């Protein structure tokens, strides 16, 4: 995961002098007066810009300048961040919510260390033991319901922003499985989900296979990206039902099954393991 320091450098390289001056001033104000976040947070887009942080990278998982600046503002709040999160989210528009969700892994790490500067040092440890979260209770308590809310939307960018390291560290297996299915439904590429690899359960493999069967029975295409996850814990009943579709009287179902199983075989042989 990118560090807070790297985010700041990236924002500085993508902003002009007046934008940087606003951000510097905002960070300074917030360190003394956390409640000022309520007016600063909505203003970020018009003050520092909204373009991609990495020029040319504008997928649902890519950072924008406003996402990064909002993350820096929240990090600057230090221990006061947790208390501000619920209302910032509730009254936030989609861009504000996205910035807040993207900030969560940084806040959870900062919560442990107590200072924003130490966040970078904690990240390696946090990533290495993602589910040891007993010591980040405040941010977690405040933010888990917000992540759950974002995952109930059908907004690609919100769902993607919610599904970062924080979500994989704090959501239970059922919620992760539902979130992955949500990604498939709204067209978020699964390969972008950092942290999914350790969370693929037999239930998730089964749900994805059942989804493939539904698509095939409707005569529709199946996204090829699901097969490596299905084959982590191959669900016998669902796979047998899919194989049986190859003999179905409706031509469209036979064709859909043939195409899907060809993708599966090709990925098993050549594809990257997700």
């Amino acid at each position: 995961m990118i560090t807070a320091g790297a985010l700041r450098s990236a924002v500085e390289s993508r902003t002009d002098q007046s934008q940087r001056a606003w951000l510097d001033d905002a960070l300074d104000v917030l360190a003394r007066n956390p409640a000022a976040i309520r007016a600063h947070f909505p203003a970020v887009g018009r003050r520092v810009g909204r373009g991609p942080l990495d020029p040319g990278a504008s997928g649902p998982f890519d950072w924008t300048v406003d996402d990064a600046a909002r993350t820096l503002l929240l990090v600057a709040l230090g221990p006061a961040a947790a208390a501000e999160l619920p209302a910032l989210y509730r009254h936030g528009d989609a861009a504000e919510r996205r910035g807040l969700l993207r900030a969560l892994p940084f806040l959870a790490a900062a919560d442990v260390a107590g200072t924003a500067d130490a966040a970078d040092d904690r990240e390696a440890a946090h990533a290495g033991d993602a589910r040891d979260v007993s010591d980040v209770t405040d941010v977690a308590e405040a933010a888990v319901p917000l992540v759950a809310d974002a995952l109930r939307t059908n907004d690609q960018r919100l769902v993607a922003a919610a599904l970062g390291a924080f979500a994989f560290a704090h959501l239970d297996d059922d919620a992760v499985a539902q979130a992955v299915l949500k990604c498939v439904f709204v067209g978020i590429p699964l390969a972008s989900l950092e942290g999914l690899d350790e969370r693929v359960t037999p239930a998730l493999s089964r749900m994805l296979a059942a989804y493939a069967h539904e698509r095939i029975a409707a005569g529709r295409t199946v996204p090829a990206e699901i097969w490596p996850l299905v084959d982590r814990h191959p669900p016998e009943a669902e796979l047998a039902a899919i194989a049986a579709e190859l003999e179905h009287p409706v031509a469209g179902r036979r064709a859909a099954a043939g195409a899907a199983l060809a993708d599966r075989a090709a990925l098993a042989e050549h594809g990257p393991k997700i």
Partner: protein
Amino acid sequence: MRIFEPHIHMTSRTTDDYEALAAAGVVALVEPSFWLGQPRTSVGSFVDYFDALLGWERFRAAQFGIRHHCTIALNPKEANDGGLRDDVLALLPRYLAKDGVVAVGEVGYDSMTPAEDEAFSAQLALAVEHDLPALVHTPHRDKVAGTRRTLDVVDASGLPRERVLIDHNNELTVPLVAGTGCWMGFSIYPDTKMDETRMIRILSEYGTERMILNSAADWGRSDPLKVAKTAGAMLDAGFSADDVDRVVWRNPVEFYAQSGRLELDGVDADGPATFEGNSVRRGQPAGGPA
């Protein structure tokens, strides 16, 4: 052709859609309460929404000779909001007592969470208590497992199966629901859930008994005329006019009539002139809609 549209979210449709529905033969409809695309943050938003279903939408529909009914419930998605759930559930009995409320719904599963389990069971109990049928939404994700679990919860509720409409079926859920005694709903959409051709195949295989078609039109990509179009496709495929009448009129009427609150006589095409001072017919030529 007479059409009873058993599931359509008119709140998110224009007045032109009411006019097109009437022209296509829709003379009565049911608008289930559901979520609004983004979560509500207070119980007051539910109060206003339920009032609009019973007031403003009924009035708008009446302008075009369409009898508007609704179903009332806390939808599965918002059942996950712990801060709202109890307040909304406490509000429901007041609305479930009202004229024009012909079922509890949409209830059921979205993500199959414990909170959804609780709200689903509590609302089926309300259906029993208020002598109403239930309109049950089946989930988009993990649909087959969700449908099985839905049938288990229905059986545990004590609500007779013939008073339950299991909605949004597809090829893989029909075999689970057919033969249970529950009614089977199908949402005919432009590019998700179910389309006309697939629906014809299902009707050919399973027959027309307890089969109910809807457009479920809302603010997503949807088409309020899908029931009429599917009825036309049925005729083209060789179904009789009586078969069509059964699935687009007699079946939904029989299901919702179990509420004892279906009002299909004396629909006044002209309706009152204004609703709280607001006429939807602004700009209409003299004489109003046909």
